[in-house]
């Protein structure tokens, strides 16, 4: 794959993230490296999707699929990947409160907050491929069950599978690759 641009964005505002992506050089690839703090505090999926749609206008038709899949992948990279938090914390109200506190304390830790997340995208005339890579312990995607409607956790991956035409994992589950046609 040749052409395109990598944007490194470890701190800033949503406006400055949007500007950095908009100013990236053209080409059939756009890569963004962000800190965990940025991923957890800014609407990165929205900004990245807007940048993709600006470059590939036909993706407007699948904008919500792209943003939805990217949002879930970034959320998983932050929560389960770089912060290492378990899904089942959110089962109970007490667990939900603990989950919120652990998110806050993780993001207050300068080492955890600075851990990178890489978002890569490239496109052809028929499909967009997105990947999100974290620096966590990885996981076995086959170990996850399909959630019931009343489930309080575990919806992220099933949402991604619904929105994308194909999904694959590599690097022991630290990288998810998603293909969206159109």
């Amino acid at each position, binding site marked *: 794959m040749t052409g395109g641009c990598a944007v490194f964005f470890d701190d800033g505002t949503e406006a400055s993230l949007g500007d950095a992506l908009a100013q990236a050089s053209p080409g059939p690839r756009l890569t963004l490296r962000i800190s965990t703090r940025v991923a957890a505090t800014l609407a990165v999926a929205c900004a990245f999707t807007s940048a993709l749609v600006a470059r590939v206008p036909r993706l407007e038709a699948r904008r919500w699929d792209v943003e939805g899949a990217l949002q879930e992948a970034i959320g998983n990279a932050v929560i389960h990947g770089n912060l290492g938090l378990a899904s089942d914390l959110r089962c109970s109200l007490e667990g939900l409160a603990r989950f*919120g506190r652990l*998110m806050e304390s993780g993001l207050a830790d300068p080492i955890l907050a600075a851990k990178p997340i890489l978002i890569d995208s490239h496109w052809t005339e028929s499909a967009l491929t997105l990947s999100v890579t974290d620096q966590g312990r990885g996981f076995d995607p086959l170990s996850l069950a399909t959630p019931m409607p*009343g489930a*309080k956790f575990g919806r992220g991956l099933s949402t991604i599978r619904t929105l994308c035409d194909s999904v694959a994992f590599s690097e022991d589950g630290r990288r998810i690759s998603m293909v969206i046609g159109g």
Partner: protein
Amino acid sequence: MEYQIAINDSRVGVTLKGRLTFSDANIFPRVLEGMTRPGITLCEFDMAALDFIDSTGMSLLIHAYDQAKKSGFKVILRNVGGSVRAALERAGFPALFEMA
């Protein structure tokens, strides 16, 4: 995400605005605490100004559903539109909530 809670006798109104995502997980307990009061019979979420929801954001609504079942009140999701409605329908929420 911004939220407001208004209590009027036995009804609670929760207005959500912006993006309801994993980034807001630390405020979910406050929202749930604010809407769960003795004597409440109805809790209405106004989602007209909610632009986006992810799977972690949905867990706030599932916890509200559980609280309602425990405490005997009803939850209605009002003014659900656009991508938020599509996401909730995809996740099977119409089987759990009245979505007006």
